[in-house]
């Protein structure tokens, strides 16, 4: 019938891209995952507009900035929401003396925060950026920590007199009728240390400005100082630290395995898939509980119920990995060890949990999603339109609740997902209620996946249980290989960019955090709402500041 209704997923070949970009491409700089085109710094908007509108690359997945000896480089990793296996990298080199590049913010809203981060950590200036401030480090910071001339040995001492207190300004505008309110960094509803500068007109939110970076722990740089083989894997557990550990580990594992060309045994993939989905369930339970904390107030039963149920998942994960939170269970090429002995007991325990799950879900539906007051509170608040969600690079349940049918487990298959029978949940509501429902239904889908994995694991022939591929003790991928790979984390697309320089440590390690993108949309979805809706929207985006700030 109408071709407009169909998602535009025609395969765009490299020739098409070459033709589209034409003379603007100075040369090719292909990455392992995608063709790369090097363009001039003042062609950025032009090329990105063309790629978005002509070739359908509507997802600016990530922006990586880095410094070489002779140049700075910004890499725009672009994908399609309709088909994330189609990727293209736009590489924008700028000179060391004058690192100025055109801002991509007019094309993709998400470039706003990404370019601020690139400026903050690497030191590239983006011309035409609407808000060129630091984002992770304090405004008073000197230098850019990931640039070559930055002296990392030199501690930065900020004297008390110079120290800018981020919550010192308590008035926005003396003349105006609005009220400026600092929500956070310590506030019951910020789910960590987030500081939201809010301008209120009565109870209505006029303007907000999330101030992040309180939990910045230099995760990217720490990963750059670790060896591929063993030293990086513990870090991902600490990004999204509320029980999404295995999902995070998989992000690194996938990128590094593709980079070093490691095949993972099928048996290990099944264990990985099962573990990852357990983490997803735990993470979604927590999201439900904390969201209810925001809508019900403290002392509510749902929060405790969800923690009670999450506890069962944690027990199973503890049996599997030996740890409750910081699992460190994946290895390049497989997992650390097989299912715990006795296997039957473990499998039975996991099955018991799955058997009890439907009753629990229906309890939540009675208590939470079926409650009229809850519906009145959540329907039509925090509305995130699909176009906006795409522009902000939202992924995961946040995007799927806005009707964007995007799930890397299905669209860019990895692990054992493509051999299993499950569905991607989407909802059309675009509001807080849809996001809650979406997560609840995803729990059921995850349970389906786990069930099938358990069946597979139970029947797996005993002499064929290979948990790790044969991986050399020291991994040294080919120099100047670049790769961007993503997995479906609990919160959305969790991507890793790695550039190798021939040593056993990555030369650049960039984390694409789904929470970072999802949080950046908060400004758009909460303006004009009331304060309670701002809090609810923040809760329904389900951010973990450890992953936002890295």
């Amino acid at each position, binding site marked *: 019938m109408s071709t407009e209704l169909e998602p535009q997923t025609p395969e765009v070949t490299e020739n098409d891209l070459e033709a589209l970009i034409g003379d603007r491409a100075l040369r090719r700089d292909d990455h392992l995952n995608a063709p790369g085109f090097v363009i001039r710094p003042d062609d950025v908007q032009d090329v990105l507009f063309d790629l978005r509108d002509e070739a359908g690359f509507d997802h600016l997945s990530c922006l990586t900035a880095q410094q070489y000896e002779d140049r700075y480089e910004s890499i725009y990793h672009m994908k399609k929401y309709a088909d994330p296996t189609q990727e293209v990298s736009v590489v924008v080199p700028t000179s060391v003396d004058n690192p100025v590049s055109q801002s991509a913010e007019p094309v993709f809203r998400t470039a706003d925060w990404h370019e601020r981060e690139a400026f903050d950590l690497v030191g590239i200036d983006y011309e035409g950026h609407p808000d060129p401030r630091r984002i992770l480090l304090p405004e008073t910071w000197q230098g850019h920590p990931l640039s070559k001339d930055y002296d990392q040995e030199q501690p930065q001492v900020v004297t008390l007199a110079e120290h800018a207190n981020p919550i010192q300004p308590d008035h926005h505008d003396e003349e105006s009728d609005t009220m400026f309110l600092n929500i956070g960094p310590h506030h019951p509803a910020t789910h960590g240390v987030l500081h939201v500068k809010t301008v209120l007109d009565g109870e209505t939110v006029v303007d907000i400005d999330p101030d992040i970076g309180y939990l910045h722990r230099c995760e990217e740089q720490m990963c750059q100082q670790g060896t591929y083989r063993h030293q990086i894997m513990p870090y991902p557990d600490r990004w999204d630290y509320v029980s999404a550990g295995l999902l995070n580990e998989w992000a690194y594992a996938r990128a590094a395995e593709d980079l070093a060309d490691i095949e993972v045994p099928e048996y290990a993939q099944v264990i990985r898939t099962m573990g990852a989905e357990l983490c997803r369930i735990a993470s979604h339970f927590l999201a439900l509980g904390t969201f209810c904390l925001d809508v019900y107030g403290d002392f509510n039963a749902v929060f405790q119920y969800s923690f009670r149920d999450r506890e069962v998942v944690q027990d199973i994960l503890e049996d599997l990995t030996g740890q409750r939170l910081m699992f460190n269970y994946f290895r390049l090429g497989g997992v650390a060890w097989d299912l715990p002995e006795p296997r039957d007991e473990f499998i039975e325990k996991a099955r018991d949990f799955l058997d009890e799950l439907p009753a629990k879900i229906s309890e939540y539906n009675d208590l939470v999603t079926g409650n009229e007051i809850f519906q*009145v509170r959540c329907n039509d608040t925090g509305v995130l339109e699909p176009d906006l969600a795409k522009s902000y690079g939202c992924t995961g349940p946040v995007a799927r609740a806005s009707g964007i049918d995007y799930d890397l487990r299905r669209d860019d298959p990895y692990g054992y997902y493509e051999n299993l029978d499950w569905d991607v949940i989407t909802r059309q509501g675009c509001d807080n209620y849809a996001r809650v429902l979406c997560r609840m239904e995803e729990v059921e889908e995850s349970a389906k996946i786990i069930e099938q994995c358990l069946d597979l694991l139970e029947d797996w022939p005993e002499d064929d249980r290979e948990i790790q591929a044969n991986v050399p003790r020291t991994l040294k991928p080919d120099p100047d290989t670049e790769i961007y790979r993503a997995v479906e984390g609990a919160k959305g697309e969790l991507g890793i960019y790695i550039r190798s320089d021939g040593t056993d440590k990555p030369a650049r390690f960039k984390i694409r955090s789904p929470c970072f993108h999802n949080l950046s949309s908060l400004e758009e979805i909460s303006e004009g709402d009331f304060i309670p809706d701002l809090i609810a929207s923040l809760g329904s985006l389900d951010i973990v500041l450890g992953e936002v700030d890295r």
Partner: protein
Amino acid sequence: MIEGTLIQAGDTVLLPERIGDLTGLDQFGLAGELLAAFLAAFIVGNLMLAMTGVAGPWAKRKITAAFTDRIAVNRLGPAGLLIIVADSVRLLSKENIIPENADRPAYDLAPIVVASSALLGFAVIPMGSGIHLADPEVGLVFVFAVAGIASLGLVMAGYSSANKYSMLGGLRAVAQNVAYEIPLVVTGMSVVIFTGSLQMSEIVAVQNQPLVDFGLFAIPAWFAIVNPFAFVLFLLANFAEVGRNPFDTPEAPTEIVAGYQTEYSSVYFVLIYLGEFLHIFLGGAIIATIFLGGPAGPGPEALGIVWFIIKIWGVFLLTQWMRSAVPRVRVDQLIEIGWKGLLVLSFANLILTAIIVGIIQ
């Protein structure tokens, strides 16, 4: 029967008179009567404060824990009861931090106003077993009036703290109390149509007549049974009045930190906290008096106070239940429910009751 002298109302004997009579203080004229009245007020006040003392640090925790699959305090004393002592010491020994820009003495007065307004209300409540301080002819109006003073305390607290969260909480408290006090009073008045009197003892007495007599037992004419619609309306409005879910917007811990009480610490915090619980209990006392037959219950009349306390705690339990299970409405929805819903319904109830009572009589 002991004859009272100072406060003679109906045929009930009030606590001050009884004390005056028992101690012989009534022989000393006005001074003696005053002293007896103080003694009586002291007893009632302490009874209520003791109840809040149990409710705040201990019962509330235990009740919430029961609702949420937990155990709560169980280390100090039997069933953790000594946590009351520990908490008192903890709260009272904390530094009382007063914000630099606080508007004093409003800041200092607010906790006292909040706590004392609730205590005043108990003066006219007949609690059974002869515990009844005063029985003025306008008892019901008096209790609504003094409970309403708490709003003033909340505004004072919210405004004088020089904190924006407090300010928002204070504003919300006023908007909420104005919106819900009218339905509360109007619904209360529908009871007066039945009784024809605002006097508390009269209201209780009317309810103790049997509604339906089955011979062996009789269903009393409690207004909760006579007019359940008014009872539900009153319960709802009362949730808003005491600021508990689904109407706990003035505090709204996840939105505006702790509302008007954000800046209060130490003793002041204790006073505000006490005031809140006293208000819940006062709400329970009003509900018990005008809808649940006051101290009436099976057994000898001396057990009246026990039944009365059970009824109050029943209402308290209900507020805690709501807190555990019901989401909070948004502030605009709260106002909408108040003005467009409860107000209309309460007037409809009043008019209908008036018509029905008119026809019956």
